[in-house]
């Protein structure tokens, strides 16, 4: 189902803070793929050093 079938685009106007249909967001995604290594480097510093023990220790009771 093609997105151009969708109505209501006209309600938007231009200056609504939404990403443009193609270029801008595509570029953002490109950048994301490009710098995934630097993201991993940053997140490395956050992660628990002993993942197995950390996962084992995360025990919850059911709720609701």
């Amino acid at each position, binding site marked *: *189902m093609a*997105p151009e*079938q*969708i*109505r*209501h*685009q006209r*309600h*938007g106007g231009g200056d*609504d*803070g*939404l*990403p443009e*249909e193609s270029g801008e*967001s*595509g570029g*953002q*995604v490109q950048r*994301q793929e490009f710098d*995934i*290594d630097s*993201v*991993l480097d*940053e*997140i490395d510093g*956050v*992660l*628990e050093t002993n*993942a*197995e023990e*950390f*996962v*084992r*220790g*995360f*025990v*919850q*009771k*059911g*709720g*609701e």
Partner: protein
Amino acid sequence: MSEGRFSGEQAGVRRVMGIETEYGISMPGVPHANPVLMSGQVVQAYADSVGITPRHARWDYADETPLRDARGFDMGRAVAHPTQLTDEDPTLLNVVLSNGARLYVDHAHPEYSSPEVTTPRDAVIWDRAGELVTRAAAQRLAQSPPGIVLYKNNTDGKGASYGTHENYLMRRSTPFQDIVRHLIPFFVARQAICGSGRVGIGDDSRDVGYQLSQRADFFEVEVGLETTLKRPIINTRDEPHAEADRWRRLHVIIGDANHADVANLLKMGTTSLVLAMIEDGAVTADLTLQRPVATLQRVSHDPTLTTPVELVDGTRLTAVQLLWRYHELAAAYLDQRSPGELDPDTAEVMQWWERILTLLERDPMEAAPYLDWVGKLQLLGGYISRDRLEWGDPRLRAIDIQWSDVREDKGVFTRLERAGRFERLVTDAQIENAVTHPPEDTRAYFRGRCTEAYREHVIAASWDSVILDVPGSANLVRVPLLDPVRGTRELVGEVLDTATDVADLVRRLSA
């Protein structure tokens, strides 16, 4: 605010709504610490940090009786003397916050129940205010190592799940069977947008892999009253906290806790729109699914979004195509009901809805900056390829858990968002403001401001009343708030601004 806005005269996303979140809770290095006591400590720690004594502004569990509501406030005279309200279980702590929210111990989790709001955007803002509330509690508790850590997620991956529930005020006159029929297919499909992603398949992660939703594997039936076992796609709990002959509060238990603004906005906004269509009889297609519970899980288990769902008429669609059906119905509905300009909240939801479905249809990974499950999958995929991990690797499960850590320095989502990798729809300033200020267009405004200004005198509060101890009065005074769209800034702001003390406030509200 006129009632008309909530009875379909203006078609759109606006209605009274809110989000309740039970946070995961853990003491580092002490896996079997008592979660009930820890949850009590969280509530106490937050209360201490903002100078609230939990014995003030407790929750009023008294059954409500219908009350006259001529001007929104019909002063009821006392149900109990203050001394009768002093019994309390230390593990069942409750506080009403100055933003109109409730922070309390629910079973074995601290729960933040947002104040009532009227737009999806405000739902996001006051939901995120809850993240700051729990973060503040965790910060305070960290001063006594090992501290207590909170997680905005919905499962431990070992068989336990805890909820993030949405509430939507609906017209009582809408047949419940219509809600069931038209909402189940939507709920099966919407996890493609608002799932938060999860490492592990099966309620206890018996199989390895990744799925869209934290919650899908915990659902067993289509309709029911339970929330803790035999969880239903449609929950029938019916406590309207409003005039019961006019309103139903639809209690939605199938959602995940969202971090991503776009996912959270769309969860609330598209659901509210579908409800509006149901109320107005505008879901003209029969989208009833075959085997909805099994389909819910199959859809969740397929991050490629290619798994077909089968309608009772034999039509096979993907979850995204099914969501397009709802989007088209909504577009037609809005065209018919609100020709011309849509209100900004509805326009925003419709545009994001279209944008996200377009991305998901083209390549789900393109939605990484907008949706929790895709952003999480992208990060996990990065680790898998860099470190050659298998899906069963505990590092991936650890990342999944740490994703939702509420601490600013430790939370993986928070770090990624700070790095600009998630689209923001609301600002830090808006969220910080919402920690201490109530929404202005619901009764939460009165609850929050009254709590803030007269903390010493608010003996108890609930969704639909505030009980005040007024000096010079022998009895307590109950201010009923049965109508969710009274008690607003427009109606009581001036009285709250200019009242000289609580007695003056009560006198002027009664006048």
